[in-house]
């Protein structure tokens, strides 16, 4: 029932199938492009709202690109500036670490202008459900213990207690907790480089 497998037929059919498939993908891409952008922006905005005090500007439009390591200015982190009545009330720093148990994970860290952590929020992660994934629980002690800590005046050692630091790790999720500390450290370095 299938047509003859001559070279001409095969080339023709494959070309047509590929053309058809790519056309379909192109159409769907065009249709879903905007909703995808919106979904991403919404997520970022939600995270910013969570981690900095109330603001009245649009932080997504006031983005600074700040390097975590001043000697390597090419690799920058995004810093969203939150302002109220023209005054800076906080900085939301996006920080990514590759030291997570399941690979890279990204958090949003909110700083008040003097370097205190206002709140933190996980943007994306691939930690183990039931173990490392507990970092997404914003009410847990692990997340709330950061709030109010000043990470830039040297009063806090950013490491889990097991490693001699000041941060209580999540039980059975030491690697994830360490990665979180790493991401916080990056965020603190970024914050130091803002000015």
């Amino acid at each position, binding site marked *: 029932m*299938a047509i003859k497998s001559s070279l001409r037929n095969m080339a023709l059919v*494959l070309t047509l199938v590929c053309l058809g498939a*790519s056309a379909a993908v192109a159409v769907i891409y065009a249709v879903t492009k905007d909703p995808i952008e919106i979904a991403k922006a919404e997520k970022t905005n939600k995270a910013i709202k969570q981690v900095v005090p109330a603001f009245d500007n649009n932080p997504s439009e006031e983005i600074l690109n700040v390097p975590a390591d001043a000697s390597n200015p090419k690799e920058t982190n995004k810093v969203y500036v939150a302002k109220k009545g023209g005054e800076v009330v906080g900085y939301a720093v996006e920080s990514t670490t590759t030291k997570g148990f399941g690979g890279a994970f990204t958090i949003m860290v909110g700083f008040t202008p003097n370097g205190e952590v206002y709140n933190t929020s996980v943007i994306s992660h691939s930690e183990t*459900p*039931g*173990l490392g994934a507990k970092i997404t629980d914003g009410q847990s002690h692990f997340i709330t213990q950061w709030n109010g800590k000043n990470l830039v005046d040297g009063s806090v050692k950013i490491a889990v207690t097991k490693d001699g630091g000041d941060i209580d790790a999540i039980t*059975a999720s030491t690697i994830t907790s360490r990665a979180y500390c790493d991401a916080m450290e990056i965020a603190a370095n970024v914050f130091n480089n803002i000015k």
Partner: protein
Amino acid sequence: MSKFKYLLEGIVKNNPTFVLVLGMCPTLATTTSAMNGMGMGAATMAVLICSNMVISLLAPVIPDKVRIPCYIVVIAAFVTVVQFVMQAFTPALYETLGIFIPLIVVNCIVLGRAEAFANKHSVLESALDGIGIGIGFTIALTCIGLVREVLGNLSAFDHKFASSDGMLVFVLAPGAFLVLGYLMVIFNKIKGKKNA
């Protein structure tokens, strides 16, 4: 009546997970919770129905020697479509399933149904087969996910019903094998009784 046979066959007699034992990679990896399993099943079902229909349409004009590349191109196109749609409308689910969405392309269920069923049957029959197999796969994944979530995390469909930790091993990889094995035994036991 006879057409519905195809639908039912996919759910029970040819259940892709418990009977055909196909597509084990996403089955084991994405069923850490009932929601994830269901999402994965639904995404696979969408791809399966579309690819089954298109392939049964195209089968008469595809030369035998290049049929596999043609099927894969069709399947890959639909997977990419599903990926875009999920990214746009269910970003949270898209993120949890991660790499396993693009990997639907190489899911042996999809290619297997194209090769074993769709290219020999009509569009309607292929669509019914896709729905049946898709539902069978979704049910299986949701069951595995639910059992793992209940035992490992003490929650069902993301609703926690106890505050303690549960048996974590069921959320981790070994738990996937254990739950899959036991559910397979139960499923085939019940199925065997009915047939006898």
